[in-house]
């Protein structure tokens, strides 16, 4: 197996994870025109809930399946619930504010949620390695990979397919696309824009929490995991074009493979790889690969 194949396998694994953390962010941006910095806090919240649920299930002697089910359902439920609360109490008052104000409001939310998560779960790192260990290792050529990490890619593909099917093959999804394209026109055609916006925001935060839950068995869940995610997810979705689902897939693949290549070929520059790719793409296409050009206001 040559180095190129290794880079590809590593890159695709990383891309799967990147897609999971950024899909919710890009979905929310597409519909609400709001870049949710608090997305990272929802990711961290999901990771904490999952780590806690896995620990609880393992203590009571449940198997891997129950542990993961508890982790995923718990994270999605908590993420969605907090999402509804945040949207209904705070964000909906801010939709007619300038975008920098709403951006800053989500930053304020991020700060609050990070501290509240710390208050609830404590400052000590949580570990939930049980499911990942239970899946064991898989031999790919001469190298062994944790099966769990390979399954993450499957999860990412499933989420991508699910989002695509909901958006393109259901009535609600069609309404979401209508709201993305023209909010006023959709409203005048009888689409309940407010309901669509709430539903999308909740789906976005639940997806963020789900990404955290998937990641929890791979990392030490500790304060501070949220920040990196915001910046990375932004890099991914800005490469593809904000609000574009296909763009998130392409962005995740580009960033994932670039990062894997840098890690193998020039480890010192691995930190830069993501941003270098982002700068390169933006230099050619200032608003991302799949972004629609905006009309200038005169």
């Amino acid at each position: 197996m040559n180095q190129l194949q290794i880079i590809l396998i590593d890159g695709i694994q990383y891309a799967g994870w990147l897609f999971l953390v950024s899909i919710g962010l890009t979905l929310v941006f597409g519909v609400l025109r709001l870049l949710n910095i608090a997305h990272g806090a929802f990711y961290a919240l999901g990771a904490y809930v999952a780590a806690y649920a896995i620990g609880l299930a393992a203590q009571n002697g449940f198997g891997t399946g129950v542990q993961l089910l508890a982790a995923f359902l718990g994270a999605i439920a908590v993420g969605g619930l907090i999402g509804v609360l945040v949207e209904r109490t705070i964000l909906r008052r801010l939709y007619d504010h300038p975008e920098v104000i709403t951006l800053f409001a989500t930053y304020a939310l991020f700060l609050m949620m990070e501290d509240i998560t710390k208050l609830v779960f404590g400052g000590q790192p949580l570990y939930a390695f049980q499911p990942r260990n239970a899946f064991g290792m898989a031999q790919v050529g001469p190298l062994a990979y944790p099966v769990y990490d390979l399954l993450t890619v499957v999860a990412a593909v499933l989420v991508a397919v699910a989002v695509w099917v909901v958006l393109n093959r259901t009535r609600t999804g069609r309404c979401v696309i209508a709201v993305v394209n023209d909010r006023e026109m959709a409203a005048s055609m009888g689409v309940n824009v407010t309901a669509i916006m709430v539903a999308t925001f909740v789906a976005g935060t639940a997806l963020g929490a789900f990404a955290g839950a998937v990641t929890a068995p791979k990392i030490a869940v500790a304060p501070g995991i949220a920040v990196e995610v915001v910046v990375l997810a932004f890099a991914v979705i800005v490469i593809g074009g904000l609000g574009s689902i296909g763009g998130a897939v392409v962005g995740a693949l580009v960033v994932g493979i670039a990062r894997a290549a840098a890690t193998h070929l020039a480890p010192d520059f691995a930190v830069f790889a993501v941003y270098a790719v982002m700068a390169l793409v933006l230099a050619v296409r200032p608003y991302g690969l799949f972004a629609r050009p905006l009309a200038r206001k005169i």
Partner: protein
Amino acid sequence: MRRLVDPTIIAILAGALALTFAHGLMPGWVIYMLQLALAAALPALGCMILLRSGLLTFGQGLFYFIGAYGVALTQRHLGLTDAFAGLLLGALASALVATIVGTFLARYRGIFFAMLTLALSMVVYGIAIKMDLFGRSDGLNVSRLTYLGVVPGREWATPALFVFCIWVFAVAAVMTHLYLTSRFGRMLSAIHDNETRVEYLGWSVAKAVHVSFIVAAVLASLGGTLAAAAARYADPSLAFWTTSGEFVFIVLISGIGNVLSPLFGSVFLEALRAYASTHFPDEWQLVLGAVMLVIILFLPKGLGHLFVLAKRAVVRPVAGKSLPANAKERS
């Protein structure tokens, strides 16, 4: 010459003079808190300039970091303890970095500008915590400063630094005020209202944004030098995005009306920090976030806007003054 008798400039100079002679009357903790507030007000002033043209930056921390390391590194590697040398080197380095990255950033607006500046400062933070040159995550110590060959004795070190902080801020504030009231500076609000019209008038929007980005960077680096000198150390967390977030918070509190507004905001922030650290030592971010949200929801133009509202109630409104507000709604 009319601009030299500007009330803002007189207020800055009078305030600076008063504080210079009042240092003996204030307890040590007030002096220290005021130094930190002055240091934080400078990068916030930079945020304010950028916000005038509608640009939210999460990258002021980067230049704050450069300013702080400007003084720390000149002491360590050039053996110069002079305050002005550190200040100047940090400012030059910041101007250089801002000129280079500004060519790329000046095209972006709104969330793109905010997130790209954020990404940039996080990259620098990521490098700094791993490099020995910057003392890794521990940071570097800053020894006591000298001023153009004058070495203040032990009991004079604190007052000397305090006076230095005041006058650096005063000079920077006066310069910024002259910049903002010049034709070039007034264009910033025009850019916020409508870029296309500004371009039709024959000005380059990208160039104006680039220049104010560099000015903001230099102001942030001056603040960084003062912060490092006051706290006696510099560490990579200065480039962390929450540091930049605090500067935006300051402007959010104070509004963007006047060059002195950020000082008002940063004094409020330092007071809030002092209060929160005694009552909620581990929940500082929670307090900060909650105050931010309350201000955004109920006073979107900042606490400083309370003064404007009060003034409006007292002073009879001038007919022409309502025009800009209408123009904003239309765009």
